[in-house]
């Protein structure tokens, strides 16, 4: 569906995207991960035809440079920070709807889908960040395009708005849309993506399934186990013997680092040894951890 072949984009002497080749199949959801400045947004802008580039980009087997307008009609784009004209919500949908030649019925159904019916007469500047992002999503869906491109769409949203937004995207995924999205957040990747492309210094350095990402990167979750004072030393000893590399005392409990996918194992081992666990917390691998890992170990 989206075929990017040997794309290079330079700003002066700075190489923002460096010989990137990737393929997003029909119905596939692909996440672009990477630190700030890795080239994710630049690559997306190349695919949208906003930037000139060296190489070839095809949407549905059509070179976008030769079929720019048609290519853009196949894409619904949701930017990181949606910037609208200072019009009413419904007028914004009408304006972009007219460009995409959609009818009133479609606009009404989208307002309902994104939950903005009660806010349709508000100016875009009066909408909250979450509402603006939902409006942006509605604009992206106007012509029911087969491809959705989302550029860090949840970066400015609070937890509730983020959850609502991700569910909207997930529904589109289930309907068979092809989605390419950039993100800073691993939880979004696990929730949505079929495949993850990790970008660093303008290059795609990792192409992996999300479930394999943790293992590929050697990522570990940090578990804080609260156990009775008298059992802490014994617990440390058992877990160390079981091969958990990083086990340490932490106040009224202990810390243990566990490979992703094996979080249950320390619980099982301690329960087998009849050591009671009174409470626990899990510190997820963060994007920062992943970036740090790649920066330190390369890939």
């Amino acid at each position, binding site marked *: 569906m989206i075929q990017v072949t040997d794309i290079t984009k330079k700003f002066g002497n700075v190489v923002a995207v460096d010989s990137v080749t990737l393929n997003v199949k029909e119905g596939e959801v692909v996440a672009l991960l990477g630190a700030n400045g890795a080239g994710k947004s630049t690559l997306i802008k190349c695919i949208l035809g906003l930037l000139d580039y060296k190489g070839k980009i095809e949407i549905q087997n059509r070179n976008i440079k030769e079929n720019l307008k048609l290519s853009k009609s196949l*894409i619904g784009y949701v930017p990181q920070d949606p910037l609208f004209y200072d019009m009413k919500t419904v007028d914004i949908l009408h304006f972009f709807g007219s460009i995409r030649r959609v009818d009133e019925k479609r606009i009404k159904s989208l307002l309902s889908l994104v939950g903005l019916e009660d806010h349709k007469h508000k100016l875009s500047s009066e909408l909250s960040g979450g509402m603006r992002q939902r409006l942006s999503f509605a604009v992206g869906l106007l012509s029911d395009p087969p491809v959705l491109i989302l550029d860090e769409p949840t970066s400015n949203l609070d937890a509730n708005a983020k959850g609502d937004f991700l569910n909207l995207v997930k529904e589109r995924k289930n309907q068979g849309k092809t989605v390419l999205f950039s993100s800073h957040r691993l939880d979004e990747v696990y929730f949505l993506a079929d495949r993850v492309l990790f970008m660093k210094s303008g290059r795609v350095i990792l192409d992996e399934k999300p479930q394999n990402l943790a293992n590929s990167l050697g990522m570990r979750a940090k578990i804080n186990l609260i156990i009775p004072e008298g059992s802490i030393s014994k617990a440390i000893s058992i877990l160390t013997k079981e091969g958990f590399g990083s086990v340490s005392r932490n106040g009224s409990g202990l810390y243990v680092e566990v490979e992703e996918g094996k979080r249950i194992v320390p619980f099982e081992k301690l329960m087998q040894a009849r050591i009671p666990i009174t409470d626990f917390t899990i510190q997820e691998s963060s994007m920062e951890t992943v970036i740090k890992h790649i920066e330190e170990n390369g890939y």
Partner: protein
Amino acid sequence: MDTKNVFLIMRKEAGESLRNRWFILYTLCFSALALLVLLFSTMGGEIAGYSGFGRTAASLINLVLLFVPLIAVITGGISISQERENGTLPYLLSHPINKNEIFVGKFLGILITIWFSILLGFGLAGLGVAIRGGEGEISGYLLTIILSALLAACFLSIGFLVSVYSGKASKAIGISVFLWLFFIILGDLGIMGTTVAMDLGIKQVFVLALLNPAEVFKIASVLVLSPRFEILGPVGVYAVRTFGQQGVFYLLFSIMILWALIPLGYAYLVFTRFRKEEK
């Protein structure tokens, strides 16, 4: 080019301009001053060969010269630069619409709103003249309206050229105001200074005047309103004797059209061909 998209952008631009408080203020000021001009110009009898519609139009020329280029060049200046600065331009371009459609739609949308304000000012003043039983040729008055509309197109075109090169609206406004000062205020002084300093002949002075669209408008307007072309001074007499009264008018009219088309055409090329990227 898809005319439906052009019309969409045109309608959006016109709507935004008509809601813009500065544009509303400008239109109100221009209309109020036009009525004031009408009041003063109808107080006496014939002055310098002007009466009724002719005198009102002659008085409005100075008003047009100050106001129309200023609003046109500034509105043109911010037209694209502001969208670029706000980030709305790349977002718009992510939809199936081309840069040429956006450019043409924007230009026409803004031009129509400026024309609307000109028509309102001239219309109110003309209505006042008619109510007071105004005399004189209405054709001169109508031609002055057409020339004013053309002057707006010239300066809007210059404003668009500024806009396509500017990444920020503040920069575009600064350059636009400078250009307005240059053409309107410093234009006359520049011609006078150059004439004295370089000891120019009448022909060269005439050519120098043609390089400024505001001067061209001034000469053309006086020419259509007055049967006595000698009030244009020696340069005017030279021009009329060389090209004939009609010939000079056609020449000036053509030059104004060129002033409207050349900066606009270049701005179009810069926006659609030379500057392909919108980050």
